[in-house]
């Protein structure tokens, strides 16, 4: 049988050092392959760790919110799409937490950061932790956060002084570009859809607007992100108005009341069975 008969034949291929586990696919790339994990001279380990932790927290909390759509999404295909995006973010979180543990001197692992910290120790931006709301809020939040994170990662991929962070960012850029595309298409589709879908999309945009300043205070990419958001809003017939910013910042550990219950669910198994392994 030739590969032309079956698009999935490539899955059974055996790659070097990578036995064929059909169910998991083969030929996966290690995004950090060949990257030196030693801290480069002149780089402040504590500051680097804090940056990795904050970017990891953003991704972990949003991934958990996206996972909460499982069994609740409006369509089977959307459920899978949102879970896929969440898993991309979870992968970014793991690499960033691992790097934080290597550079903050504590020797902590990814589980320590994800499962053994309380809400006050998380540094994610608050937009990631807000409740899911309806599908309009889901996609407009995803649009904003993925456009913002994409701009941050594009910059880090080119300029980060830490080669590990640069490699993690370079991997994330491809994922985030798809997340942004997915979200933007839905925002346009619903914003330019029926009267009701337009109204709910406009409401959703107004609900996230107060949290935009926090994003740009945390990572200064306003110039790259705002034109993207305006372009999508214009295509969708939506108005992205100036809004009073919600005071405070998740980067300083100031969170809404919604983060603690999210973490309680995320950490419940790890806390019920401390030290358990698969």
């Amino acid at each position, binding site marked *: 049988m030739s590969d032309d008969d079956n698009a999935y*034949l490539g899955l059974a291929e055996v790659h070097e050092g990578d036995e064929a586990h059909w169910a998991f696919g083969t030929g996966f790339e290690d995004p950090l392959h060949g990257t030196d994990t030693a801290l480069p001279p002149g780089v402040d380990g504590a500051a680097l760790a804090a940056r990795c932790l904050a970017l990891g927290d953003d991704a972990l909390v949003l991934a958990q919110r996206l996972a909460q759509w499982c069994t609740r999404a409006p369509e089977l295909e959307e459920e899978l799409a949102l879970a896929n995006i969440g898993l991309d973010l979870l992968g970014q979180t793991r690499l960033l937490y691992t790097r934080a543990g290597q550079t903050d001197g504590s020797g902590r692992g990814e589980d320590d950061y994800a499962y053994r910290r309380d809400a006050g120790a998380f540094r994610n931006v608050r937009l990631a932790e807000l409740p899911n709301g309806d599908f309009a809020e889901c996609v407009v939040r995803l649009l904003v956060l993925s456009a913002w994170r994409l701009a941050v990662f594009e910059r880090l991929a080119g300029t980060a002084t830490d080669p590990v962070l640069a490699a993690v960012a370079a991997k994330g850029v491809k994922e985030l570009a798809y997340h942004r595309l997915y979200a933007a298409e839905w925002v346009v589709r619903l914003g330019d859809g029926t009267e009701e879908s337009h109204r709910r999309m406009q409401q959703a945009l107004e609900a996230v607007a107060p949290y935009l300043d926090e994003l740009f205070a945390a990572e200064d990419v306003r110039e790259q992100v705002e034109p993207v958001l305006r372009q999508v809003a214009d295509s969708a017939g939506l108005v992205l108005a100036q809004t009073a910013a919600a005071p405070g910042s998740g980067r300083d550990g100031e969170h809404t009341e919604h983060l603690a219950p999210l973490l309680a669910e995320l950490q419940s198994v790890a806390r019920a069975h401390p030290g358990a392994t698969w």
Partner: protein
Amino acid sequence: MSNPDWPLYEVFVRGKRGLNHVHVGSLHAADDRMALTHARDLYTRRNEGVSIWVVRSSAITASTPDEKDPFFAPSGDKVYRHPTFYDIPADVPHI
């Protein structure tokens, strides 16, 4: 389940080593772009694809089982249409 109001699309994926797009399944989507992203999320999750085609199922004209004999039986006895009477040079690929 998928929204019955959304049209059905057929999905074709070209694998990493494949030369052709191959039919892998179908899905529902509201428009062509959505069909493409759904196909990406449903059918290329395990690192399989390098290219996707989607097409509305309604755009496909298919032969019917009733036409099976008049369509296909006549070619069954024309052995001279098979290139079995030639020696194929070893360096000619894809035959």
